[in-house]
Protein backbone atom coordinates (compact mmCIF):
# COMPACT_ATOMS: atom_id res chain seq x y z
CA UNK A 1 0.00 0.00 0.00
CA UNK A 2 2.79 2.29 1.02
CA UNK A 3 4.65 1.65 -2.23
CA UNK A 4 1.57 2.51 -4.20
CA UNK A 5 1.26 5.90 -2.50
CA UNK A 6 4.92 6.53 -3.23
CA UNK A 7 4.50 5.63 -6.92
CA UNK A 8 1.49 7.87 -7.11
CA UNK A 9 3.43 10.77 -5.62
CA UNK A 10 6.29 10.17 -8.07
CA UNK A 11 3.86 10.16 -11.00
CA UNK A 12 2.27 13.33 -9.81
CA UNK A 13 5.68 14.95 -9.42
CA UNK A 14 6.66 14.02 -12.96
CA UNK A 15 3.32 15.22 -14.27
CA UNK A 16 3.56 18.54 -12.45
CA UNK A 17 7.16 19.14 -13.47
CA UNK A 18 6.26 18.38 -17.11
CA UNK A 19 3.50 20.91 -16.81
CA UNK A 20 5.94 23.49 -15.49
CA UNK A 21 8.39 22.69 -18.26
CA UNK A 22 5.87 23.03 -21.08
CA UNK A 23 4.32 25.99 -19.39
CA UNK A 24 7.63 27.80 -19.44
CA UNK A 25 8.27 26.98 -23.11
CA UNK A 26 4.81 28.26 -23.96
CA UNK A 27 5.67 31.41 -22.10
CA UNK A 28 8.63 31.87 -24.44
CA UNK A 29 6.22 32.12 -27.38
CA UNK A 30 4.68 35.07 -25.57
CA UNK A 31 7.21 37.49 -24.05
CA UNK A 32 10.68 36.04 -24.24
CA UNK A 33 14.38 36.64 -23.80
CA UNK A 34 17.29 35.33 -25.85
CA UNK A 35 20.96 35.61 -25.01
CA UNK A 36 24.29 34.77 -26.57
CA UNK A 37 27.88 35.45 -25.65
CA UNK A 38 30.70 36.95 -27.66
CA UNK A 39 32.69 33.83 -26.70
CA UNK A 40 31.55 30.63 -25.05
CA UNK A 41 34.92 29.70 -23.65
CA UNK A 42 37.68 31.57 -21.90
CA UNK A 43 41.22 30.33 -22.51
CA UNK A 44 43.45 30.73 -19.51
CA UNK A 45 46.90 30.92 -21.07
CA UNK A 46 50.23 32.01 -19.58
CA UNK A 47 49.35 35.58 -20.59
CA UNK A 48 45.98 35.50 -18.79
CA UNK A 49 45.24 38.52 -16.65
CA UNK A 50 41.49 38.30 -16.33
CA UNK A 51 38.85 38.40 -19.03
CA UNK A 52 35.87 40.46 -20.08
CA UNK A 53 32.68 38.53 -20.62
CA UNK A 54 30.03 40.12 -22.83
CA UNK A 55 26.50 38.73 -22.89
CA UNK A 56 24.21 39.95 -25.69
CA UNK A 57 20.47 39.51 -25.81
CA UNK A 58 17.04 40.64 -26.92
CA UNK A 59 13.76 40.79 -25.05
CA UNK A 60 10.58 40.54 -27.16
CA UNK A 61 6.87 40.61 -26.49
CA UNK A 62 4.35 38.05 -27.84
CA UNK A 63 4.26 39.78 -31.25
CA UNK A 64 8.03 39.57 -31.68
CA UNK A 65 8.44 43.27 -31.03
CA UNK A 66 11.07 44.58 -28.66
CA UNK A 67 9.79 45.49 -25.21
CA UNK A 68 10.14 49.14 -24.37
CA UNK A 69 11.77 49.05 -20.97
CA UNK A 70 12.07 45.41 -19.99
CA UNK A 71 13.08 44.17 -16.53
CA UNK A 72 16.12 42.09 -17.26
CA UNK A 73 18.67 40.47 -14.99
CA UNK A 74 21.79 38.71 -16.29
CA UNK A 75 23.71 36.60 -13.81
CA UNK A 76 27.19 35.05 -14.03
CA UNK A 77 28.07 32.37 -11.50
CA UNK A 78 31.30 30.35 -11.17
CA UNK A 79 31.97 26.83 -9.90
CA UNK A 80 31.67 26.24 -6.17
CA UNK A 81 34.00 24.97 -3.50
CA UNK A 82 34.53 25.21 0.23
CA UNK A 83 36.19 28.34 1.56
CA UNK A 84 37.94 28.76 4.91
CA UNK A 85 37.78 32.18 6.54
CA UNK A 86 40.39 32.77 9.25
CA UNK A 87 40.59 35.52 11.80
CA UNK A 88 43.86 36.98 13.05
CA UNK A 89 44.15 37.78 16.72
CA UNK A 90 46.94 39.26 18.75
CA UNK A 91 48.73 36.64 20.85
CA UNK A 92 51.65 37.97 22.90
CA UNK A 93 52.06 40.85 20.45
CA UNK A 94 52.00 38.61 17.36
CA UNK A 95 49.09 38.50 14.96
CA UNK A 96 48.23 34.83 14.58
CA UNK A 97 45.37 33.00 12.92
CA UNK A 98 42.99 31.94 15.65
CA UNK A 99 39.37 31.11 14.83
CA UNK A 100 38.26 29.86 11.45
CA UNK A 101 34.99 28.86 9.80
CA UNK A 102 34.73 26.68 6.72
CA UNK A 103 31.85 27.67 4.44
CA UNK A 104 30.34 25.10 2.10
CA UNK A 105 29.83 25.52 -1.66
CA UNK A 106 30.70 29.15 -2.19
CA UNK A 107 30.83 30.17 -5.87
CA UNK A 108 34.28 31.48 -6.81
CA UNK A 109 32.65 34.17 -8.83
CA UNK A 110 29.25 35.79 -8.64
CA UNK A 111 28.06 38.92 -10.39
CA UNK A 112 24.89 40.20 -12.01
CA UNK A 113 23.69 43.11 -14.13
CA UNK A 114 20.24 44.70 -14.16
CA UNK A 115 18.35 46.82 -16.64
CA UNK A 116 16.77 49.03 -13.96
CA UNK A 117 16.73 49.51 -10.21
CA UNK A 118 16.30 46.35 -8.21
CA UNK A 119 13.00 47.38 -6.67
CA UNK A 120 11.53 48.28 -10.10
CA UNK A 121 12.24 44.82 -11.50
CA UNK A 122 10.59 42.64 -8.89
CA UNK A 123 10.06 42.35 -5.18
CA UNK A 124 13.00 41.34 -3.03
CA UNK A 125 11.20 38.07 -2.37
CA UNK A 126 10.88 37.24 -6.08
CA UNK A 127 14.53 38.08 -6.73
CA UNK A 128 15.65 35.84 -3.88
CA UNK A 129 13.47 33.00 -5.19
CA UNK A 130 15.35 33.23 -8.48
CA UNK A 131 18.77 33.33 -6.86
CA UNK A 132 19.47 36.96 -7.74
CA UNK A 133 21.57 39.06 -5.37
CA UNK A 134 24.41 38.43 -2.95
CA UNK A 135 22.05 37.71 -0.08
CA UNK A 136 20.72 34.66 -1.92
CA UNK A 137 24.06 32.91 -1.54
CA UNK A 138 23.76 30.43 1.25
CA UNK A 139 26.56 30.58 3.77
CA UNK A 140 26.45 27.18 5.35
CA UNK A 141 29.24 26.17 7.70
CA UNK A 142 30.92 22.81 7.23
CA UNK A 143 30.78 22.33 10.99
CA UNK A 144 27.28 22.94 12.35
CA UNK A 145 28.67 24.11 15.72
CA UNK A 146 30.01 27.25 14.08
CA UNK A 147 26.52 28.77 13.92
CA UNK A 148 26.14 28.64 17.69
CA UNK A 149 27.51 32.15 18.05
CA UNK A 150 25.43 34.01 15.44
CA UNK A 151 27.27 37.30 15.99
CA UNK A 152 30.63 35.70 15.24
CA UNK A 153 29.20 33.74 12.32
CA UNK A 154 27.88 36.95 10.78
CA UNK A 155 31.32 38.56 11.24
CA UNK A 156 33.03 35.76 9.30
CA UNK A 157 30.38 35.82 6.59
CA UNK A 158 30.76 39.58 6.14
CA UNK A 159 34.54 39.24 6.01
CA UNK A 160 34.29 36.67 3.21
CA UNK A 161 32.00 38.96 1.19
CA UNK A 162 34.17 42.02 1.86
CA UNK A 163 37.45 40.33 0.84
CA UNK A 164 35.97 38.74 -2.26
CA UNK A 165 34.39 42.01 -3.30
CA UNK A 166 37.83 43.59 -3.06
CA UNK A 167 39.34 40.78 -5.19
CA UNK A 168 36.61 41.24 -7.79
CA UNK A 169 34.95 37.85 -7.19
CA UNK A 170 31.77 39.27 -5.67
CA UNK A 171 29.78 42.25 -7.01
CA UNK A 172 30.04 45.71 -5.58
CA UNK A 173 26.55 46.22 -6.99
CA UNK A 174 25.12 48.53 -9.60
CA UNK A 175 26.26 46.72 -12.75
CA UNK A 176 23.95 48.01 -15.51
CA UNK A 177 22.63 46.36 -18.63
CA UNK A 178 23.20 48.62 -21.66
CA UNK A 179 20.67 48.95 -24.47
CA UNK A 180 22.27 49.22 -27.88
CA UNK A 181 19.04 49.77 -29.86
CA UNK A 182 16.24 47.77 -31.49
CA UNK A 183 15.76 45.87 -28.25
CA UNK A 184 19.32 44.55 -28.28
CA UNK A 185 21.07 44.70 -24.92
CA UNK A 186 24.47 43.79 -23.56
CA UNK A 187 25.78 42.99 -20.09
CA UNK A 188 29.50 43.29 -19.35
CA UNK A 189 31.32 41.29 -16.72
CA UNK A 190 34.97 41.24 -15.70
CA UNK A 191 36.51 37.96 -14.57
CA UNK A 192 39.59 38.61 -12.40
CA UNK A 193 42.84 36.69 -12.98
CA UNK A 194 42.46 34.70 -9.77
CA UNK A 195 39.35 32.77 -10.86
CA UNK A 196 39.45 28.99 -10.99
CA UNK A 197 38.79 27.02 -14.13
CA UNK A 198 35.53 25.20 -14.66
CA UNK A 199 32.02 25.66 -15.98
CA UNK A 200 30.41 29.04 -15.33
CA UNK A 201 26.65 29.57 -15.55
CA UNK A 202 25.12 32.49 -17.39
CA UNK A 203 21.45 33.06 -16.55
CA UNK A 204 19.14 35.67 -18.03
CA UNK A 205 15.77 36.55 -16.50
CA UNK A 206 12.92 38.57 -17.97
CA UNK A 207 10.48 40.11 -15.51
CA UNK A 208 7.15 41.71 -16.38
CA UNK A 209 5.12 43.50 -13.76
CA UNK A 210 7.27 41.99 -11.04
CA UNK A 211 6.77 38.44 -12.30
CA UNK A 212 9.27 36.13 -13.98
CA UNK A 213 8.09 35.49 -17.56
CA UNK A 214 11.13 33.91 -19.16
CA UNK A 215 14.54 32.55 -18.27
CA UNK A 216 17.49 31.41 -20.39
CA UNK A 217 20.69 29.61 -19.36
CA UNK A 218 24.04 29.21 -21.04
CA UNK A 219 27.37 27.76 -19.99
CA UNK A 220 30.73 29.46 -20.14
CA UNK A 221 33.74 27.16 -20.21
CA UNK A 222 36.80 28.59 -18.46
CA UNK A 223 39.76 26.30 -19.13
CA UNK A 224 43.53 26.50 -19.15
CA UNK A 225 44.87 26.36 -22.68
CA UNK A 226 48.15 26.11 -24.53
CA UNK A 227 51.37 25.78 -22.58
CA UNK A 228 49.62 26.67 -19.34
CA UNK A 229 47.23 23.72 -19.67
CA UNK A 230 50.11 21.46 -20.66
CA UNK A 231 52.16 22.31 -17.56
CA UNK A 232 49.18 22.07 -15.22
CA UNK A 233 48.17 18.71 -16.68
CA UNK A 234 51.64 17.24 -16.20
CA UNK A 235 52.01 18.67 -12.70
CA UNK A 236 48.86 16.92 -11.51
CA UNK A 237 48.69 13.78 -13.63
CA UNK A 238 52.33 12.76 -13.92
CA UNK A 239 53.81 14.50 -10.89
CA UNK A 240 56.85 12.22 -10.77
CA UNK A 241 57.68 13.03 -14.39
CA UNK A 242 57.02 16.70 -13.67
CA UNK A 243 59.40 16.58 -10.70
CA UNK A 244 62.04 14.83 -12.80
CA UNK A 245 61.69 17.44 -15.54
CA UNK A 246 61.90 20.27 -12.98
CA UNK A 247 65.07 18.87 -11.42
CA UNK A 248 66.63 18.35 -14.88
CA UNK A 249 65.75 21.93 -15.84
CA UNK A 250 67.39 23.26 -12.68
CA UNK A 251 70.45 21.05 -13.23
CA UNK A 252 70.72 22.35 -16.80
CA UNK A 253 70.49 25.94 -15.59
CA UNK A 254 73.12 25.24 -12.94
CA UNK A 255 75.57 23.79 -15.45
CA UNK A 256 74.88 26.63 -17.88
CA UNK A 257 75.46 29.18 -15.13
CA UNK A 258 78.75 27.47 -14.21
CA UNK A 259 79.94 27.43 -17.82
CA UNK A 260 79.24 31.16 -18.08
CA UNK A 261 81.34 31.91 -15.02
CA UNK A 262 84.10 29.55 -16.21
CA UNK A 263 84.28 31.48 -19.47
CA UNK A 264 84.96 34.61 -17.50
CA UNK A 265 87.77 32.79 -15.77
CA UNK A 266 86.41 32.92 -12.28
Amino acid at each position, binding site marked *: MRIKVKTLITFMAIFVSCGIYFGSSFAASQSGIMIDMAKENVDVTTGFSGSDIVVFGVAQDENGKSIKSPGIVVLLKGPQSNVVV*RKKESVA*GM*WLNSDSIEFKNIPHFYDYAMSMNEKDIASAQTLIENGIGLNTLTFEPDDEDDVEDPEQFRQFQEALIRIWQRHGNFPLGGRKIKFIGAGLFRADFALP*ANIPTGLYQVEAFLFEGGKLVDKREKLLDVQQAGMSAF*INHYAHTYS*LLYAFFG*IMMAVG*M*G*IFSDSLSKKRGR
Partner: protein
Amino acid sequence: MDIYLPVAEMAVSLNTIIGLGVAVGILSTVFGVGGGFLATPFLVFLGVPASFAVGTQAVQLISTSLSGVIGHWRKGSVDFKLGSVMLAGSLTGTIFGILIFKLLQYTGHIDVVINALYVLLLGTVGGMMLYESFSAILKKKHKAEAARSKFWLRATSGLPYTVMFPKSNLSISALVPIILGVIGGLMVSVLGIGGGFLVVPAMIYILGMPTNLVVGTSMFQILITTSLSALLHIVSNNTVDLLLAFILMVGALIGNQIGSRLSPYVRGATARLMLALILLGVCFMLWENLFIEPVEHFSTEVLDK
Protein backbone atom coordinates in the same frame (compact mmCIF):
# COMPACT_ATOMS: atom_id res chain seq x y z
CA MET B 1 53.10 42.57 -18.19
CA ASP B 2 51.43 39.87 -16.13
CA ILE B 3 52.11 36.20 -16.44
CA TYR B 4 49.71 33.46 -15.37
CA LEU B 5 51.30 30.72 -13.28
CA PRO B 6 49.70 27.48 -14.48
CA VAL B 7 50.07 25.40 -11.31
CA ALA B 8 49.70 28.12 -8.69
CA GLU B 9 46.73 29.31 -10.83
CA MET B 10 47.34 33.01 -10.37
CA ALA B 11 48.76 35.98 -12.27
CA VAL B 12 51.93 37.79 -11.20
CA SER B 13 53.92 40.63 -12.71
CA LEU B 14 56.63 39.20 -14.97
CA ASN B 15 58.99 42.14 -14.43
CA THR B 16 58.79 41.83 -10.65
CA ILE B 17 59.60 38.10 -10.76
CA ILE B 18 62.56 38.63 -13.09
CA GLY B 19 63.74 41.49 -10.87
CA LEU B 20 63.53 39.21 -7.85
CA GLY B 21 65.55 36.57 -9.70
CA VAL B 22 68.19 39.14 -10.61
CA ALA B 23 68.45 40.29 -6.98
CA VAL B 24 68.87 36.70 -5.84
CA GLY B 25 71.52 36.12 -8.51
CA ILE B 26 73.51 39.20 -7.46
CA LEU B 27 73.30 38.19 -3.78
CA SER B 28 74.50 34.66 -4.44
CA THR B 29 77.44 35.78 -6.55
CA VAL B 30 78.57 38.68 -4.38
CA PHE B 31 77.93 37.20 -0.94
CA GLY B 32 77.98 33.47 -1.61
CA VAL B 33 74.52 32.89 -0.12
CA GLY B 34 71.64 31.09 -1.82
CA GLY B 35 69.31 34.06 -1.71
CA GLY B 36 66.31 31.96 -0.75
CA PHE B 37 65.82 34.09 2.35
CA LEU B 38 65.07 37.01 0.01
CA ALA B 39 63.05 35.16 -2.66
CA THR B 40 60.67 33.20 -0.44
CA PRO B 41 59.38 36.14 1.67
CA PHE B 42 59.09 38.36 -1.42
CA LEU B 43 57.09 35.75 -3.32
CA VAL B 44 54.73 35.53 -0.35
CA PHE B 45 54.62 39.33 -0.30
CA LEU B 46 53.53 39.27 -3.99
CA GLY B 47 50.60 37.04 -3.08
CA VAL B 48 52.08 33.66 -4.00
CA PRO B 49 50.88 31.17 -1.36
CA ALA B 50 53.67 30.27 1.09
CA SER B 51 53.46 26.62 0.04
CA PHE B 52 54.19 27.53 -3.59
CA ALA B 53 56.95 29.98 -2.64
CA VAL B 54 58.79 27.34 -0.59
CA GLY B 55 58.22 24.50 -3.08
CA THR B 56 59.31 26.55 -6.07
CA GLN B 57 62.36 27.88 -4.24
CA ALA B 58 63.49 24.29 -3.68
CA VAL B 59 63.81 23.89 -7.47
CA GLN B 60 65.63 27.19 -7.98
CA LEU B 61 68.02 26.22 -5.19
CA ILE B 62 69.09 23.14 -7.18
CA SER B 63 70.58 25.29 -9.93
CA THR B 64 72.26 27.72 -7.54
CA SER B 65 73.87 25.03 -5.40
CA LEU B 66 74.85 22.89 -8.40
CA SER B 67 76.82 25.66 -10.10
CA GLY B 68 78.42 26.37 -6.73
CA VAL B 69 79.38 22.73 -6.16
CA ILE B 70 80.91 22.37 -9.63
CA GLY B 71 83.10 25.43 -9.03
CA HIS B 72 84.26 24.22 -5.61
CA TRP B 73 84.75 20.65 -6.79
CA ARG B 74 87.06 21.91 -9.54
CA LYS B 75 89.12 23.67 -6.89
CA GLY B 76 89.04 20.53 -4.77
CA SER B 77 87.32 22.28 -1.90
CA VAL B 78 84.52 19.81 -1.18
CA ASP B 79 84.77 17.25 1.63
CA PHE B 80 82.47 14.59 0.19
CA LYS B 81 82.80 12.26 3.17
CA LEU B 82 81.73 14.86 5.69
CA GLY B 83 79.05 16.11 3.29
CA SER B 84 77.65 12.59 2.98
CA VAL B 85 77.48 12.17 6.76
CA MET B 86 75.63 15.48 6.98
CA LEU B 87 73.28 14.23 4.26
CA ALA B 88 72.16 11.38 6.49
CA GLY B 89 70.81 14.06 8.80
CA SER B 90 69.55 16.50 6.20
CA LEU B 91 67.56 13.94 4.19
CA THR B 92 65.84 12.86 7.41
CA GLY B 93 65.27 16.51 8.25
CA THR B 94 63.72 17.11 4.82
CA ILE B 95 61.23 14.29 5.17
CA PHE B 96 60.24 15.51 8.64
CA GLY B 97 60.07 19.06 7.33
CA ILE B 98 57.62 18.07 4.58
CA LEU B 99 55.42 16.35 7.18
CA ILE B 100 55.53 19.39 9.48
CA PHE B 101 54.73 21.59 6.48
CA LYS B 102 51.67 19.51 5.58
CA LEU B 103 50.46 19.55 9.17
CA LEU B 104 50.80 23.34 9.47
CA GLN B 105 49.10 23.78 6.11
CA TYR B 106 46.20 21.71 7.40
CA THR B 107 45.83 23.75 10.58
CA GLY B 108 46.22 27.03 8.67
CA HIS B 109 49.28 28.24 10.55
CA ILE B 110 51.92 27.75 7.84
CA ASP B 111 52.18 31.41 6.80
CA VAL B 112 52.57 32.71 10.33
CA VAL B 113 55.08 30.01 11.32
CA ILE B 114 57.21 30.65 8.22
CA ASN B 115 57.03 34.38 8.92
CA ALA B 116 58.02 34.01 12.57
CA LEU B 117 60.89 31.61 11.79
CA TYR B 118 62.25 34.00 9.19
CA VAL B 119 62.15 36.91 11.66
CA LEU B 120 63.97 34.81 14.24
CA LEU B 121 66.62 33.48 11.86
CA LEU B 122 67.29 36.64 9.90
CA GLY B 123 67.30 38.77 13.05
CA THR B 124 69.79 36.54 14.85
CA VAL B 125 72.13 35.92 11.95
CA GLY B 126 71.89 39.50 10.66
CA GLY B 127 72.55 40.91 14.11
CA MET B 128 75.54 38.63 14.72
CA MET B 129 76.96 39.37 11.30
CA LEU B 130 76.49 43.11 11.81
CA TYR B 131 78.38 42.98 15.12
CA GLU B 132 81.15 40.81 13.66
CA SER B 133 81.68 42.89 10.53
CA PHE B 134 81.67 46.14 12.50
CA SER B 135 84.37 44.84 14.84
CA ALA B 136 86.40 43.61 11.87
CA ILE B 137 86.15 46.98 10.12
CA LEU B 138 87.24 48.71 13.31
CA LYS B 139 90.28 46.37 13.25
CA LYS B 140 89.48 44.91 16.64
CA LYS B 141 90.94 41.49 15.95
CA HIS B 142 89.36 39.55 18.76
CA LYS B 143 90.11 35.96 19.56
CA ALA B 144 86.44 35.02 19.87
CA GLU B 145 86.59 32.54 16.99
CA ALA B 146 89.26 30.34 18.48
CA ALA B 147 87.66 30.47 21.91
CA ARG B 148 84.28 29.47 20.52
CA SER B 149 85.68 26.50 18.62
CA LYS B 150 87.41 25.30 21.78
CA PHE B 151 84.15 25.47 23.69
CA TRP B 152 82.36 23.39 21.07
CA LEU B 153 85.31 21.02 20.85
CA ARG B 154 84.98 20.26 24.55
CA ALA B 155 81.17 20.08 24.37
CA THR B 156 81.19 17.57 21.51
CA SER B 157 84.21 15.49 22.49
CA GLY B 158 82.24 13.16 24.75
CA LEU B 159 79.88 12.01 22.00
CA PRO B 160 80.13 8.48 20.54
CA TYR B 161 80.65 7.29 16.93
CA THR B 162 83.87 9.17 16.28
CA VAL B 163 84.72 9.24 12.58
CA MET B 164 87.88 10.35 10.77
CA PHE B 165 87.47 12.97 8.06
CA PRO B 166 90.91 13.04 6.40
CA LYS B 167 90.10 15.79 3.93
CA SER B 168 89.10 18.22 6.69
CA ASN B 169 91.73 16.76 9.01
CA LEU B 170 89.05 16.17 11.62
CA SER B 171 88.16 13.39 13.97
CA ILE B 172 84.75 14.05 15.49
CA SER B 173 81.56 12.28 16.45
CA ALA B 174 79.37 11.66 13.40
CA LEU B 175 76.39 12.85 15.46
CA VAL B 176 77.46 16.50 15.24
CA PRO B 177 77.39 16.81 11.43
CA ILE B 178 74.23 14.68 11.35
CA ILE B 179 72.44 17.07 13.73
CA LEU B 180 73.64 20.04 11.69
CA GLY B 181 72.27 18.23 8.64
CA VAL B 182 68.86 17.76 10.26
CA ILE B 183 68.64 21.51 10.87
CA GLY B 184 69.72 22.19 7.29
CA GLY B 185 67.13 19.74 5.93
CA LEU B 186 64.35 21.31 7.99
CA MET B 187 65.26 24.75 6.67
CA VAL B 188 65.24 23.56 3.05
CA SER B 189 61.86 21.87 3.27
CA VAL B 190 59.99 24.25 5.60
CA LEU B 191 61.53 27.62 4.73
CA GLY B 192 62.73 27.07 1.16
CA ILE B 193 66.27 28.21 1.95
CA GLY B 194 69.52 26.31 1.76
CA GLY B 195 70.39 27.63 5.18
CA GLY B 196 74.00 28.24 4.21
CA PHE B 197 74.09 31.44 6.22
CA LEU B 198 73.41 29.42 9.37
CA VAL B 199 75.06 26.08 8.55
CA VAL B 200 78.34 27.54 7.23
CA PRO B 201 79.26 29.41 10.45
CA ALA B 202 78.16 26.35 12.44
CA MET B 203 80.50 24.14 10.42
CA ILE B 204 83.38 26.49 11.17
CA TYR B 205 82.69 27.06 14.86
CA ILE B 206 81.10 23.78 15.93
CA LEU B 207 82.78 21.24 13.65
CA GLY B 208 86.01 23.18 13.41
CA MET B 209 86.25 22.63 9.66
CA PRO B 210 88.87 24.49 7.61
CA THR B 211 87.16 27.58 6.15
CA ASN B 212 88.14 26.84 2.55
CA LEU B 213 86.19 23.54 2.56
CA VAL B 214 83.06 24.79 4.30
CA VAL B 215 81.14 26.49 1.50
CA GLY B 216 81.68 23.75 -1.09
CA THR B 217 80.75 21.01 1.37
CA SER B 218 77.65 22.82 2.55
CA MET B 219 76.56 23.40 -1.07
CA PHE B 220 77.05 19.73 -1.90
CA GLN B 221 74.83 18.82 1.02
CA ILE B 222 72.24 21.46 0.01
CA LEU B 223 72.17 20.23 -3.60
CA ILE B 224 71.11 16.71 -2.68
CA THR B 225 68.76 17.89 0.08
CA THR B 226 66.94 20.43 -2.06
CA SER B 227 66.54 17.91 -4.90
CA LEU B 228 64.73 15.60 -2.48
CA SER B 229 62.73 18.52 -1.09
CA ALA B 230 61.63 19.60 -4.59
CA LEU B 231 60.63 16.04 -5.44
CA LEU B 232 58.59 15.64 -2.23
CA HIS B 233 56.91 19.05 -2.56
CA ILE B 234 55.79 18.10 -6.08
CA VAL B 235 54.71 14.55 -5.41
CA SER B 236 53.03 15.08 -2.04
CA ASN B 237 51.71 18.66 -2.26
CA ASN B 238 51.80 19.67 -5.93
CA THR B 239 53.12 23.04 -4.83
CA VAL B 240 55.86 23.68 -7.36
CA ASP B 241 55.26 25.98 -10.30
CA LEU B 242 57.98 25.27 -12.83
CA LEU B 243 57.16 28.35 -14.92
CA LEU B 244 57.76 30.50 -11.85
CA ALA B 245 60.96 28.55 -11.10
CA PHE B 246 62.15 29.01 -14.69
CA ILE B 247 61.59 32.78 -14.67
CA LEU B 248 63.40 33.06 -11.33
CA MET B 249 66.32 31.03 -12.64
CA VAL B 250 66.62 33.14 -15.80
CA GLY B 251 66.63 36.24 -13.60
CA ALA B 252 69.27 34.69 -11.34
CA LEU B 253 71.44 33.95 -14.38
CA ILE B 254 71.37 37.62 -15.32
CA GLY B 255 72.01 38.51 -11.68
CA ASN B 256 75.07 36.25 -11.60
CA GLN B 257 76.59 38.16 -14.51
CA ILE B 258 75.97 41.51 -12.84
CA GLY B 259 77.17 40.15 -9.51
CA SER B 260 80.48 38.89 -10.87
CA ARG B 261 81.24 42.37 -12.17
CA LEU B 262 80.30 43.89 -8.83
CA SER B 263 82.07 41.46 -6.55
CA PRO B 264 85.64 42.78 -7.00
CA TYR B 265 84.44 46.01 -5.39
CA VAL B 266 82.62 44.38 -2.49
CA ARG B 267 84.90 42.26 -0.36
CA GLY B 268 85.57 40.97 3.11
CA ALA B 269 84.08 42.78 6.06
CA THR B 270 82.33 45.40 3.89
CA ALA B 271 80.51 42.62 2.03
CA ARG B 272 79.49 40.99 5.31
CA LEU B 273 78.28 44.34 6.62
CA MET B 274 76.14 44.86 3.53
CA LEU B 275 74.73 41.34 3.75
CA ALA B 276 73.95 41.89 7.44
CA LEU B 277 72.01 45.04 6.57
CA ILE B 278 70.06 43.21 3.84
CA LEU B 279 69.23 40.37 6.24
CA LEU B 280 68.05 42.83 8.88
CA GLY B 281 66.05 44.75 6.28
CA VAL B 282 64.12 41.65 5.21
CA CYS B 283 63.75 40.73 8.88
CA PHE B 284 62.21 44.13 9.64
CA MET B 285 59.80 43.82 6.71
CA LEU B 286 58.58 40.47 8.00
CA TRP B 287 58.54 41.68 11.57
CA GLU B 288 56.00 44.32 10.56
CA ASN B 289 53.81 41.62 9.04
CA LEU B 290 53.78 39.77 12.29
CA PHE B 291 53.60 42.50 14.92
CA ILE B 292 51.74 45.45 13.37
CA GLU B 293 47.98 45.15 13.54
CA PRO B 294 46.77 44.18 10.05
CA VAL B 295 44.16 46.36 8.33
CA GLU B 296 42.14 43.28 7.42
CA HIS B 297 41.85 40.85 10.32
CA PHE B 298 40.36 38.11 8.17
CA SER B 299 41.78 36.02 5.36
CA THR B 300 40.17 33.50 3.02
CA GLU B 301 41.46 30.30 1.51
CA VAL B 302 39.74 28.26 -1.18
CA LEU B 303 39.90 24.55 -0.49
CA ASP B 304 40.30 22.02 -3.27
CA LYS B 305 37.10 20.50 -4.50
